[in-house]
């Protein structure tokens, strides 16, 4: 793949995937900036394939019941709650 050309349609598609609305001027600004940034990321093509040591291991332990955050504390930052639950937007 050569120079990534980024148009506002593509930015709009990614914004949709990321669940972030954008104003028209933001779409245009990002299309311009992303072209530069993605072209710069292209230089990763020059990186040789490297043998990676398997450094990550799963850390497992048995489940245990412990004290945790109470329901009221967990809900205190929510815009809307009902009967001890978070309340999301009404789906029409």
């Amino acid at each position, binding site marked *: 793949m050569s120079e990534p050309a980024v148009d506002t349609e593509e930015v709009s598609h990614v914004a*949709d995937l990321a669940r972030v609305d954008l*104003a028209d001027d933001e779409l245009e600004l990002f299309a311009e900036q992303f072209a530069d940034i*993605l072209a710069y*990321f292209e230089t*990763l093509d020059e990186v040789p394939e490297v043998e990676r040591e398997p450094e990550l291991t799963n850390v497992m332990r048995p489940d245990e019941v412990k004290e945790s955050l109470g329901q009221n504390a967990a809900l205190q930052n929510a815009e809307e709650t009902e009967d001890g639950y978070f309340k*999301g*937007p*009404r789906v029409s």
Partner: protein
Amino acid sequence: MTYNGYITETQIKGSDDGPLADATVAVKDNISTEGVPTTCGSAMLDDYVPPYDATVVTRLKDAGATIPGKTNMDEFGMGTTTETSAFGPTENPAAEGHVPGGSSGGSAAVVAAGDADLALGTDTGGSVRCPAAFCGVVGIKPTYGLVSRYGLVAYANSLEQIGPLAPTVEEAAELLEVIAGPDEHDATTRNATERGADYDFAAAADGDVSGLSIGVPTELVEGADEEVVETFWSAIDDLEAGGATYHEVDLPSVEHAVEAYYVIAMSEASSNLARFDGVRYGQSGGYDGNWNETFARSREEGFGEEVKSRVLLGTYALSAGYHDKYYKQAQDARAWIKREFDEALSEADVLASPTMPVTPMAMGESLSDPLKMYLADANTTPVNLANLPAISVPAGETDDDLPVGLQFVGPAFGETEIIRAGSALA
């Protein structure tokens, strides 16, 4: 408070005695403090009040520290200048009209101004070391896993660590002693003693560099501004006079650090910031209708431009058809960088370079060109990719009185090495 170092000023009292009983320790505003707002510099969280303390905050309180406030920062840690904060930029108290560096700019600024004795910042790609260098103070980015991230609002989990800022290396080391150590709430923490290391950091700040072997990666010096390079070599001369020796090393992999860092950090950010949906916490537009659409509208209002940009680029880099091209290659670069650092550190006690290749930018100068801002992270990002510890210490000033920082990088859990080396300079 004209330089805008704090987002919230407060008085959180610690226990009556302990090693920090006489100290004030400012805390970056992405570290949770029970009952005290924690905004991450974002409008998304401007009225968010955590119901619990981060592990490092619990340890500060147990050590007797008083927390005088929550410090200003680039929004969610995304920036190198502390200008992307929703609460306005912080000015550099050590260089009027210039940025304090970022993203922990508020933490470095309050220490430089003497408004707090010490501070905590977070370092994902240089966010403790850059502001330390720009404000003329000391900052430490610990080995990945030395300090618990429980209660830190995540930006890029595989890269970030909480670290201390202080006027001197010894004080930074004392604060690191308080916050370091394994935590059952963060499975990525490690016990340094099991790695042949110890936690006696302050004792290592003895200024003795006799016999110290310093490697200087040429790639991290060549790209820097002339005045920065001059100040760097004059500090190396001082270390030589103290009995240290240096040799140059080649690390070709670091030429790819900035792009690898940004691909990985943005990818992790796109996933981490998906939690801000305006339902459980954070800005809610109060909209009804299609869940995804209301979610997207709340996030348009809550996030600033740089955050949106990074979430989108991260989403792009992970999306079908691009994952192998960007994310996988960035992971290859990360493994390559890590291997080269390990090799260089098998033939030197520490590596040294300028912390930042540039001096503090004038305020407003870099905002319009994100790529230019990213390139300023050339010397700090490789260290996060390699999971290693590093310290930035004041190395001197340019002719225009702008602070210059010198960075020492050590082996994993080799905090004592970089603290000893740094204490010869500050």
